[in-house]
C-alpha cells in the first residue's frame, strides 16, 4: 500500500451501465461502505467496520462507478493534516475523489492536486452513512480533473433520500448541460478579500478577473466588510457541533476502551484521551467550552450566522456569482486550530452559508473559487465548464 490509499478495494469492478460506468472513484474512510474499515482517520474508530452503505455509495454504484478504496485522511476529515485527499486524482489513480468539505477541504485538496474541487449546496446530498463532525456545515465534496465529471457525479448522488430527513423538501435540480451567456452573467469580487492577499497572490487574482472580463463577463465589486466574521462563526458553531457529534465516542458500545479505570466516569475520560488526536481534541475542548461556559457566545454566533446568510443573499441580488481568491496558506499540515482556520480563511464561509463553491485551477494563471446562491449548483458547474473551455481555447 502506498501513501495515498489506506484501504484498497480488491473488487473495484464498476457497473455494466450507468452515467459513471467509466469512472474510478476514491473515497475517504468517513464515507461508510459495508465491510470497509470506516475509521474516519481516528483512533476513536480504530478497527471499526462499516455496517451499512452510505447513500452516496449506493448511488455511485448504481450509476456504474467503480469504488477504488479509502484514501488516507485527516482525523474526522477536519483540515488536511496528514491527509492524502486529492493525491489519487493528481496521480491519476482515480478519476475523482469524494472529500467531505467542512472547512473547505475538498477545494483545498483540489488546489493541492491541481484539479477542480466542488462543494455542493448544503442539503443537496444525503448525509446518511457519512461519518461527520459538523452537521450544519459539512457536505461531501468532489475532487476531479474536470467539471463535467463533477456534474455527472453530483447528478448521480444528489437528491432526496428517505434515510436522511434532514434534507430540505425541495425539487430535485436539473443538471442537463446548459450554455452560459457571459454578457448576461455578473461576477462579483470582494475587495476586502483582495487586500488580505500577498502581492503575488493579488496579481494572480487580478489577472484571473481580467481573464473573466476578457471572456465577456460583467465583473463588479461586491462589498462584504463582515467577511472575517465567517471564520469566527464557523469556529464557534462548528466546534460546538463537533463536541456534540463526538459525544458518541465514549467507548461504551464501540471504540477503544482504556484499561485500569476505577469507574465509568474515569473510563470515559481515559478512553477519550486515547481516542482523539491533539487537533481534534483542542477543537472538542473549544466546543465544550462554548457549550458549557459561554452559551451566549454560541447563541450570538448563531444569530450572526443568520445575518451573514442574509448579507450573502443581498450580494447575490447584485451579482450572479462571486469570485473568491484561494487560501493564502501553504502549510497544509497545520497542527493548531489557529493554523487550520487560517488555512481555510477564504473557504469556510461557504460552509457557514451552505452555498455551492467551485475551485478551479489556473483561470488566467491562478486558482479561483466561484460561489453561487444555494441550489445554483447546475448553473455554477455550467459556468465552470464554460470558463475552463474558454481557458483552453485561450491558451
Amino acid at each position: 500500500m502506498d501513501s495515498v490509499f489506506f484501504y484498497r478495494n480488491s473488487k473495484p469492478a464498476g457497473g455494466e451501465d450507468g452515467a459513471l460506468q467509466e469512472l474510478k472513484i476514491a473515497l475517504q474512510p468517513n464515507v461508510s461502505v459495508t465491510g470497509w474499515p470506516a475509521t474516519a482517520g481516528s483512533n476513536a474508530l480504530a478497527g471499526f467496520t462499516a455496517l451499512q452503505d452510505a447513500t452516496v455509495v449506493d448511488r455511485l454504484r448504481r450509476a456504474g462507478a467503480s469504488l477504488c478504496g479509502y484514501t488516507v485522511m485527516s482525523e474526522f476529515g477536519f483540515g488536511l493534516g496528514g491527509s492524502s485527499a486529492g493525491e489519487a486524482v493528481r496521480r491519476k489513480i482515480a478519476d475523482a475523489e469524494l472529500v467531505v468539505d467542512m472547512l473547505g477541504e475538498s477545494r483545498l485538496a483540489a488546489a493541492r492536486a491541481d484539479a477542480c474541487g466542488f462543494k455542493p449546496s448544503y442539503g443537496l446530498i444525503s448525509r446518511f452513512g457519512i461519518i461527520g463532525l459538523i452537521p450544519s456545515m459539512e457536505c461531501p465534496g468532489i475532487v476531479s480533473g474536470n467539471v463535467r465529471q463533477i456534474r455527472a457525479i453530483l447528478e448521480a448522488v444528489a437528491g432526496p433520500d428517505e434515510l436522511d430527513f434532514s434534507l430540505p423538501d425541495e425539487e430535485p435540480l436539473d443538471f442537463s448541460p446548459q450554455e452560459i451567456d457571459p454578457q448576461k452573467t455578473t461576477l462579483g469580487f470582494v475587495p476586502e478579500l483582495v487586500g488580505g492577499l500577498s502581492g503575488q497572490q493579488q496579481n494572480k487574482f487580478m489577472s484571473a478577473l481580467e481573464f473573466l472580463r476578457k471572456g465577456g463577463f460583467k465583473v463588479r465589486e461586491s462589498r462584504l466588510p463582515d467577511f472575517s466574521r465567517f471564520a469566527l462563526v464557523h469556529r464557534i458553531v462548528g466546534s460546538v457541533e463537533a463536541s456534540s457529534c463526538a459525544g458518541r465516542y465514549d467507548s461504551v458500545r464501540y471504540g477503544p476502551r482504556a484499561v485500569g479505570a476505577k469507574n465509568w466516569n474515569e473510563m470515559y475520560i481515559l478512553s477519550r484521551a486515547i481516542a482523539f488526536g491533539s487537533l481534534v481534541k483542542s477543537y472538542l475542548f473549544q466546543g465544550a467550552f462554548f457549550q458549557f461556559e459561554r452559551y451566549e457566545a454560541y447563541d450570538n454566533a448563531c444569530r450572526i450566522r443568520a445575518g451573514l446568510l442574509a448579507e450573502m443573499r443581498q450580494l447575490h441580488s447584485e451579482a450572479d456569482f462571486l469570485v473568491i481568491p484561494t487560501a493564502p496558506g501553504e502549510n497544509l499540515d497545520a497542527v493548531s486550530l489557529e493554523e487550520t482556520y487560517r488555512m481555510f480563511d477564504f473557504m469556510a464561509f461557504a460552509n457557514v452559508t451552505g452555498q455551492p463553491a467551485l475551485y478551479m485551477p489556473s483561470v488566467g494563471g491562478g486558482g479561483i473559487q466561484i460561489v453561487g446562491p444555494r441550489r445554483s449548483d447546475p448553473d455554477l458547474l455550467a459556468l465552470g465548464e464554460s470558463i475552463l473551455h474558454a481557458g483552453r481555447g485561450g491558451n
Partner: protein
Amino acid sequence: MEFEAVIGLEIHVELNCATKMFCDCPNRPGDEPNVNTCPTCLWFPGAVPRLSSEALEKASLLCLALGGELQSRSAFDQKVYYYPDLPKGYQLSQAHLPLSRGGGIEVRDEKERIRKLRIHHIHMEEDVAKLVHEMEGRTPISLVDFNRAGAPLVEIVTEPDFRSPHEAMEFLKALRVQVRYAGASECSMENGTMRVDANISIRPAGTTAMNTKVEVKNMNSIRHVGDAIAYEIARQSASVQAGEDVVLHTRLWDPDRKVTLPMRAKFEGPCIPDPVVPLIELSEEWIEEMRARLPEMPAARASRFVEQYGLSGDEAAYLSSDPDLAGFFEALIGHGVAVRSGMHWLTTQLLPAVRDRQLALSNCRVTPERFAALLRMLEKEEINANAAREVLLQLFDGDAPPEEIVASRGFRQISDPTALASMVDKVIEDNPSAVADYRRGESKALGFLIGRVMQSSGGKANPKMIRGLLVKNLESGSRTAGA
C-alpha cells in the same frame, strides 16, 4: 407559622408507538436486553435520526387532549451530558421550541371546589437506555440495555399551581384518563409508562413568594406521589420552623420507609439546537386533522351519558373514566340491554370478575355481545339472577354462546305455575314455625321461605313467582289450615 405548599409536576409519558422515536426499532423496552437496537439508536458513526411520524401524531393527540396549543414551529435540541445510559452524549429533547404550550386540567380540591391546574408546556424527547448495576464476584459492573434508548416520550411540565398532595393526585388521575382516551399511552406509573417528578417549595400561607424548591423523584404510583409530597411539605416546614434554609436539591422517595432522601446531584448540561433533526412545522390543516382524530373526551362523554341514558352524574363520570369501560357500556346498550341492568351488572358483577382474573375488559372472553345476550335472558326472565351469575363465570372459560350454556346446563328458570305451586305447598308444609312467624307479622320469615323454595328448585325457580304464590297461600291460609 402556617405554611402553604407550591407544587409543580414534571410528568414523563411513554408513548405507545410501534417504533422508537428516531428509528424503526420496535418500541418494546421489556424484551430481552439489547435486541431492539440498530445503528441509529446505538448512534453508530454515520447514523441519521429520522423522526417517526407516529410519535409526532401521538404526542400531538396527547397535547390536544390536555388542552395544549400545538405550535406551528417546534424543534429538537441536544441536552448535553455524559452518562452511560446516553449513547451519544446528548439527549434529543425540545428545550427551546416545545411542541405545545398551555393547557390544563380541571380537578376538584379537598372542598369539592373546581380548580384549573395549568400546564406550562409539553415537549417531545427520546428515552435513554436502562442501567443495571450488578456484582461480578467482588467487582461492581454496570450493564446497559439499549432497548429503551430512543423510545418516544413526552414531558408535561405544569405551572406551580398545586397546593396539596390531593390536587397533585387528582390531576394525575385526570391526566391519565385524558391520555388514555387520546390513545397515546397507558400512563401506568406501576409499569413505568408514566413517571412523575414533583417540585415542592413552601411559603407562609397567603403570600405569593416563590421559594427554593426541592425536586422529588422515584414515586411509582399516584398514591406515592401524594405521600412523597405530603412528607416533603412536612419536612420543609419543620426545617424552616427550626430556622434552617431550604437548599435546592433532588430527593428520592423511599417507598418502604415512606421518606424522601437526598440524592447525589445529577449534572445538568446545556441545551443546544440540534442541527440534524429538521424543524417541525405543523400546518393548521394538520392540527385540525389531529383534533378530528381525538375521540369524544371523558367530560363530554359523561354529560352525554347523563343526557342520553339518564345516569347520575357520578355514574356517568365513573363509566367515562376509562374509555374501555365506557365503550363496553355503550356496546351493551347497543345490543339491547336496559340501561339500569347494564350499568348494574357491568359494575357490580363483570368488572370485579375481570379484576379477579387479572384481565382487562378489552381482552377477556366476555365480549359486550356475549354479556348482552346473557343480560337479555335475565331481563326476559328466562333465567334468574343466580343463574346469570353462574353463567357469567362460565363465559370466562369458553366461547360458547350464553344461550347454549343455559340450555345445556339446565339454568333455565322454572316459571311453570303448577310446578312452582307444588314446590311452594311442600315448603309451607315442611316449615310450620316459619309460617307461624310470618303470620305473626315477621316479614323476615318470607325471605326464609323463598330461600327454601329456591333451594328445592335447585336455584332455578322464578323468584318473583314464588314470592307471589307464597304470599297468596299464606294470606289465604286455606291450604294450610290443617297444620
